[in-house]
Structures are given as structure tokens and as C-alpha cells.
């Protein structure tokens, strides 16, 4: 595998969306890296949701598992599967790798 050949990125999803990976980071790279990982989802109204990112679509609709809801930094609720409509999402961030026990 020479570096001169253009790698074909095959997503495992049925869409088969392809993208040329030339080393540039695209949002899709970030998404792929956080799938199945703990994330923080911040809503426009300031609420935080922390959980494991299950899936995400082009509207930033987010499905998560093992979700915790934080309001003003205070844990308010816990949910199993969660779905958040994308228009309410301010950002998604990966959680820091070191877990605070």
C-alpha cells in the first residue's frame, strides 16, 4: 500500500458514503472517532447530556445511551436510550479520556 495511491474510505454503514482521506480532518472524522464513546452534548438552552454516542445524522439528531442530564452542572436525571433533536444541539464534544471516579 503506497502512500501515493488514493485510499478509498468505505464506511461500514449501508450508505456507503465515501470520502477521500488526504489527512485533512473533516467533521466526519470526528464523528467516526466519537461513535460508541462517551460524549458531552450541549444544548442551546445550556443543558448538558453525557452519555455514549450511539448514532448521529446529518441534522445532528443524536442518539445516546446511558445518558445523564446536567442542568447548571448538577446531575438531574438519568436515562437509558436518549434521542435529541439536532436543532437544539449547540455542540458535541468527546469526554476527556480520564474518567473522574
Amino acid at each position, binding site marked *: 500500500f*503506497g502512500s501515493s495511491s488514493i485510499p478509498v*474510505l468505505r*464506511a461500514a*454503514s449501508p450508505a456507503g458514503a465515501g470520502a477521500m482521506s488526504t489527512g485533512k480532518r473533516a467533521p466526519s472524522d470526528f464523528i467516526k472517532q466519537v461513535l460508541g464513546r462517551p460524549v458531552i452534548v450541549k*444544548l442551546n438552552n445550556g443543558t448538558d447530556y453525557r452519555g455514549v*454516542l450511539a448514532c448521529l*445524522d446529518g441534522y445532528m439528531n443524536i*442518539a445516546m445511551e446511558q445518558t445523564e442530564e446536567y442542568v447548571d452542572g448538577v446531575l438531574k436525571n438519568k436515562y437509558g436510550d436518549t434521542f435529541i433533536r439536532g*436543532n437544539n444541539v449547540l455542540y458535541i464534544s468527546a469526554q476527556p479520556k480520564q474518567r473522574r471516579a
Partner: protein
Amino acid sequence: FECSQPPTYVPLDVHSTTMPVERAPPRNGDLPTLGANEEIRLSEQRVKLYAGQNLEGEGILHLTTRQIVWLNSQNPAAGYAMDYPFVTMHAISRDKNAWPEHCLYCQLREEERPETEDDEDADVPELRFVPADSANLQQMFMVFSEMSAMNPDPTDDQADGISEEDDSGDDIELPFQVGAPMGAGIWTADHNDDAMADADEDDDDHGDIAMETETK
């Protein structure tokens, strides 16, 4: 019911913008009155509905391609109907500390309405659908998610590119290419085992992405 016809994206009707929650949804017995191209995707019997802390009653929950309709079984004139964009978040709640019964929790969009029901929280309106059979919660959640994804916000700029003929989403210009929202063509952790691998900061390491080069 024309179940074979694929649902299409239809602009929201007037009722959704002027009155986000319809408290007397048109119904035909136990079924909601459906609009054109609207079909029921899930019906769950014996579902209690709590609005905030108030028990509204027990009824039947229908998830259609356009709206969420709960029809009160005890009061044929009462119910709740709302469009999916009105529900900002929904989740399966099994935390007994938060609510004693397993339920489908829904957080509603905060509206600046002059008339605020006393039974709704001052902060965020909440609904809880408590099915008699909590084993169905997973299915309820999944269909709800699918329908929600199929009904993007009409004010969203990203919605401009939607083809009205199918919801494959191919016509939408997005930062990353995905197919139909939530139905197919999305990245899920289940289908992307490589995504679960440790991500290296190194750009050269493609270990977390399945790749094939054209030249074998």
C-alpha cells in the same frame, strides 16, 4: 391504509405553528384522523400519560409519520397531539429515583405562550408515556426516534434541500455525507467496530477506520 406508500415530507400544517399541542385531536374511535400521506407506524395500548406531575389518563399512543397522538381512552374528546419538532428530546426512563414507573420521557419545546397550564413545570414542559407493558418501551423509543428524524424542523436551513419525493437525503448538502436520517446510512457504533478502537492522535494511523486501497 396505504402502508406501501413511502412517507413524504409534508410542510407542517397550521395547527403545529399556532397551537403546538392539540388537546382534542381529531379521532375516529381509537384511531387518530390521519392527514394525506400520513400513516401510523406504532400503536401502543394502555398508555398512561403524565403531563408534568399530572396524570392525564390512560389511552392509546399512536406514532404516525407526522405526529405523536395520544388518545384518552376514558375521555373520547381528550388527548394530546403534537408534531415531532415540538419534542426536543425523548428518552427511555428507568431511573426509579426520577419516576417510579418505566416510561418514555419527552421534553417539549418551551413556548412563549401567554396561557401556561398550571400542571406544566415552569421550566420545561415534560410528558411521560407509561405503557402498561414496559417491555415495549424500546420499540416505542426506536419508532419515535425514526419519526422524529423524518420530521426535521421546517425553520431549519438544512431542510431547504430536502426533496419532497423521498427522504433519502441525497439532495442535502451537509458537512458530511449521510443518507436518510436515522433510517439508514448513518454511522452507528454497532456497524462501526473500528470506531470503537482507540483513536490515535496521529493522522497517519488509520487503524480506527476501515480502509481499502484501490491498488491491491
